Every structure is written in C-alpha cells, then in structure tokens.
C-alpha cells in the first residue's frame, strides 16, 4: 500500500491520520507538504482534519487552491483513491472533487462528540469492509460540518448510491443527514466524522478501522 497524508498550513490531524493508517496498513505512510508540485507514485492520498489556513474565508477554500491540489485532482481523475476527513472533506468540496458544500453547523457552535452513524453503502473501496455492520459510532469535531446540496444534486447522490454515511441523529443540520459522500466514480470519499480517532482499542473505539481495512483490501485484494 502506497499511501500519503498531505499537510497544509493549519492541518492538525495529519499525524493522527498517519498513525491510524500505519497501524492498519502495516507500512509507513508518507507525509506530503502542500507546496509540493509532484506526487510520488501512490495508491491513496488522504487529506486530514484541522484548520487549514485558519479556515479563513471558507473552511478548506484556501487549501483547495494549494499547488498540490492540482496534482491531487489529476490523480483522482485518473482513478487514484482520495480520502478527505473533516477539513479534508471541506477541501475536496472546495476543489470540486465532491459535490455540495459544508457550511456552519445549524447550532452555530463547534461540536465535539461521538455520534451514531449508518454506513449507507458498502459498495465502495472505503466502506466494503463494514460488511453487515451498518451501525457504527465515530467522533465528530467540527464547526462547519453542515452539508448542503441542492435538490437535483441530492437526487443524483441518492440515485447513484453516493451517500456513504448518514448521521442517525443529525447533529449539524446536514441535508438528508449526510455525513460522508463519494464521487460518482467512487474513488473519492469525504466525511466529517474522524475514523482515525476510532482506530485504537486504547482509546475505546475501533469503528474507524474497517474504513482503512477497506482501502487496504481495495488496493491489495481481500485477505490482505
């Protein structure tokens, strides 16, 4: 598995994500600096949580225009796997790799808690390993996690089965309780919850592990 995590100025879950991925993948995960203009040969690029550029202007907006993002867009268009978590999700929507946008939580406050989620589809390289397990719990920690998309867009997401995760008790006002979406080609996933914070038994929750295991299996085949 050749995977990398990008660090933007203001990213703060980059280390957490690398640690979680390494524990599941069993190999080192590269750290990429946002200013780099070439991607090494990779199977997976992940954009971590945090406050890239302070979330100034709009969450993820400035990071989405970083030099490396042009490369990542190209990588995704060629079918490479791209995962965006929290701020990474915001960056992916800002970069146009995923539909919709993320705006301020309905309650206007930052919200950090563990929420109940439904795995809406297992037909993706990010969620296959959830198998029969459709009800999971993952931590959220965000201020701008309220997913908005227009009616047509929503109909398309639903029609194509692109909704990957839904909140069971919508904490932030997201349209149709959407917590994570896939692109139409299903090689890009963005989600607000933090699977990397639920990948270590010592922290009391391992519901994020199957997400990383799905990726490993997608790249190396099941049984890896």
């Amino acid at each position, binding site marked *: 598995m050749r995977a990398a995590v990008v660090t933007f100025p203001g990213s703060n879950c980059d280390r957490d994500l690398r640690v979680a991925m390494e524990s599941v993948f069993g190999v080192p995960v590269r750290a990429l600096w946002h200013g780099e203009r070439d991607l090494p040969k990779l199977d997976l690029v992940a954009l971590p949580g945090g406050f890239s550029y302070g979330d100034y*202007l*709009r969450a993820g*907006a*400035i990071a989405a*225009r970083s030099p490396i993002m042009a490369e990542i867009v190209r990588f995704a268009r060629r079918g490479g796997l791209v995962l965006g978590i929290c701020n990474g999700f915001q960056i992916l*929507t*800002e970069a146009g790799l995923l*539909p*919709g*946008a993320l*705006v*301020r*939580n*309905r*309650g*206007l406050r930052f919200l950090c808690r563990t929420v109940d989620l439904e795995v809406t589809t297992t037909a993706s390289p990010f969620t296959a390993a959830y198998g029969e397990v459709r009800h999971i719990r993952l931590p959220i920690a965000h201020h701008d996690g*309220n997913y*908005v998309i*227009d009616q047509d867009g929503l109909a398309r997401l639903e029609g194509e089965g692109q909704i990957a995760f839904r909140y069971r008790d919508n904490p932030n*006002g997201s349209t149709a309780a959407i917590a994570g979406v896939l692109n139409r080609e299903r090689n890009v996933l963005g989600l607000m919850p933090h699977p990397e914070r639920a990948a270590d038994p010592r922290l009391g929750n391992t519901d994020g592990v199957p997400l990383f295991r799905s990726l490993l299996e997608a790249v190396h085949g099941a049984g890896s």
Partner: protein
Amino acid sequence: MKARIEIRLKPGVLDPEAAAIERALRQLGFAGLKGVARAKVIEVELEARGPEEAEAELRAMCERLLANPVIETYAIALLR
C-alpha cells in the same frame, strides 16, 4: 484602484447564521422584524491600468478563490 466585492449565499441555500440572528433579535423584543440576510464584503485595493483590467482581475479573484460557486454569488463594484 479600490473595489468592493459583495458575496452572498444563493437564494435557496439556508443560512444558519442569519436564522440565528433573526431568532435572537426577535427574542430580544424587536417585534417589527421581518427578515435578516447576510453578505460578506471584501474590499480590495489593486493596481490596474484601467477599470476593465481591474474588473477582469477582480472577477478572476472571485472565480478562483473568493466565492464558492456552488453556494455563493458575488457582485463587484469599482470605487475609483
């Protein structure tokens, strides 16, 4: 040259902050209130050879960074 860019949510996109402001004003007793909307203003000072060039430049700024076309619209006004 100075310009004002005004950015607002497209009609139909819910604005939780405007809704909260409206609710709070009402609870504070402003009974005559009928609606609240928000916009952000970004004022830009730039060098340009003329209004056309300035406007093109400002439009590019909006398209490339300042506004998110999925949810926002923008308007440019040159001040001088």
